[in-house]
């Protein structure tokens, strides 16, 4: 029970402020990145006409998410932002599933990971908006439909970052807490595999998909 709140942190004083690094989240993120790089290499090193199993998996991800991107954006933007969507989904689904393996925990369990991915999506969406519509039209949009809606529109945009990040964080953290506490209460008999299957695999995959879809929708809403 005392394990719930413990995070190993590395605190480095720098220019008067303290830089805090949450070691577990960083290490787990590196593991996820390493696994993704290995998967990428395995899926593409042969490029046969009749694909081997890794290549099939890679093609599955790419075709699904590129078609999603094409539904939401037009062809040329979909080519540009498709890889982002694919990478985001693969990173998230692997991160959320990492908690099932013993002694590893999900990097998305720490609020910093979903928050930074959310801010990244937000910055990309607004960058795309300014690039396609120009600065003037972009700023004018905040004043629609009535002039004094501006602060509310602004807060609404910021609320989008909060909602997308906290949703992922809340689901993953909540799931891992439930698994921990219920396993503790039932003395690790019978329930843990089912809990892990539901909260780890099922909810993890759905939340990764929802995060990716929302990022895509935010980008496409800015472009239209």
């Amino acid at each position, binding site marked *: *029970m005392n394990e*719930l*709140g413990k995070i190993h942190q590395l605190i480095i004083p720098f220019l008067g402020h303290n830089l805090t690094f949450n070691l577990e989240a960083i290490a787990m993120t590196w593991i996820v990145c390493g696994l993704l790089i290995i998967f990428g290499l395995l899926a593409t090193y042969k490029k046969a006409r009749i694909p081997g199993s890794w290549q099939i998996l890679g093609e599955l991800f790419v075709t699904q998410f590129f078609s*999603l991107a094409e*539904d939401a954006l037009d062809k040329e933007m979909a080519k540009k932002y498709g890889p982002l969507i694919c990478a985001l989904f693969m990173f998230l689904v692997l991160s959320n599933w990492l908690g099932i393996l013993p002694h590893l925990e999900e990097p998305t369990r720490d609020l910093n990971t979903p928050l930074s991915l959310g801010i990244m999506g937000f910055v990309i969406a607004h960058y795309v908006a300014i690039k396609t519509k120009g600065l003037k039209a972009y700023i004018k949009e905040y004043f629609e439909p009535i002039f004094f809606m501006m602060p*509310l529109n602004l*807060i*609404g945009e910021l*609320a989008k970052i*909060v*909602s997308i990040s*906290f*949703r992922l964080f*809340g*689901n993953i*953290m*909540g*799931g891992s*807490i*439930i698994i921990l*506490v*219920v396993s503790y*209460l039932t003395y690790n008999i019978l329930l843990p595999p089912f809990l892990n299957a*539901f909260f780890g695999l*099922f*909810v993890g995959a*759905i939340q990764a*998909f*929802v995060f990716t*879809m*929302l990022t895509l*929708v935010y980008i496409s*809403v800015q472009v*239209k």
Partner: protein
Amino acid sequence: MPFDVQTWIGIAAYTGGGLAMGLGAIGAAIGEGYTAAEANYALSRAPQSAGDIFKTMLVGQAIAESASIFALVVAMLLLFTDFSSGSLVTVFAVMAAGLSMGFGAIGSGVGSGFPAAAACTGMARQPAMGARLTTNMLVGSAVCQTPSIFALVTSFILIFTDFSAEPFNPAGAAVMGAGLAAGLAAIGSGIGGGAVAQASCEGIARNPGSQKQVVNVMLLGQAITQTPAILGLLVSFILIFKQFEATDAIAPGMALFASGLCMGIGAIGPGIGEGIASSGGVRWIAKNPSIAGELTRTMLVGMAVAESTAIYSMVIALVLIFVV
């Protein structure tokens, strides 16, 4: 106070535990009852699919149950955890934990009953779509449980955080506000998310070819419907983790309590409204998949406007915490 801290903590823990389970039982029971009612009606229309409909009803009811199982877990924790190291603030914290999970389980319980009911009805209409309807119901119900998971996270944090460093006034009122914010805010989003999932199951049963678009828009709609619950979670986190200075007046404490109350109650309406809006969008995308893009955009715009009162509530809540 004539009693010592341990007695007060005991009183609050047991009351909170009772409230958690009592309130938490409401939603799941209503949802499961609705599912059973619709399943019966579906059985009367299509007795030959009895086995499938019955199985779907049981599975759907099991997922609707999970919200009240969370409440059961919290209630057990409150009854059996050793709080001997607690301070006065812990008295309010454990009560707030019970209220948070109790209220939080209402919405998701009721909401998860809707897609299960629609899946049973759909199976009577289109027995061939049985497997796809069940999968869609599972996905929709699971996402619908998210607001109660948020309430659960808040309850756990309230039970297990060490509050001894905080001054009783106003931290006591702050944690109470935190519990109410997370718990009440989950009601609306739970019911709304269920309405969306219900529309998607219905839509897939009517028009199996539209499944891909319907599922995508269902997930999108449910995710946005959960935003008021997320705002409630945010306000409750701020209330729990912010350092407050000790004070003798009751106005600052009341401000923090009112901020939690404001965000909590204020998130109910927009949650339900966004769910209704999204269910309308999903239902009509199923009937007319070719204009899915147009309908999605209209749905998103409508939902964004419906969310505005939730944002006002959040602004007032934040003003009450930080400015006043």
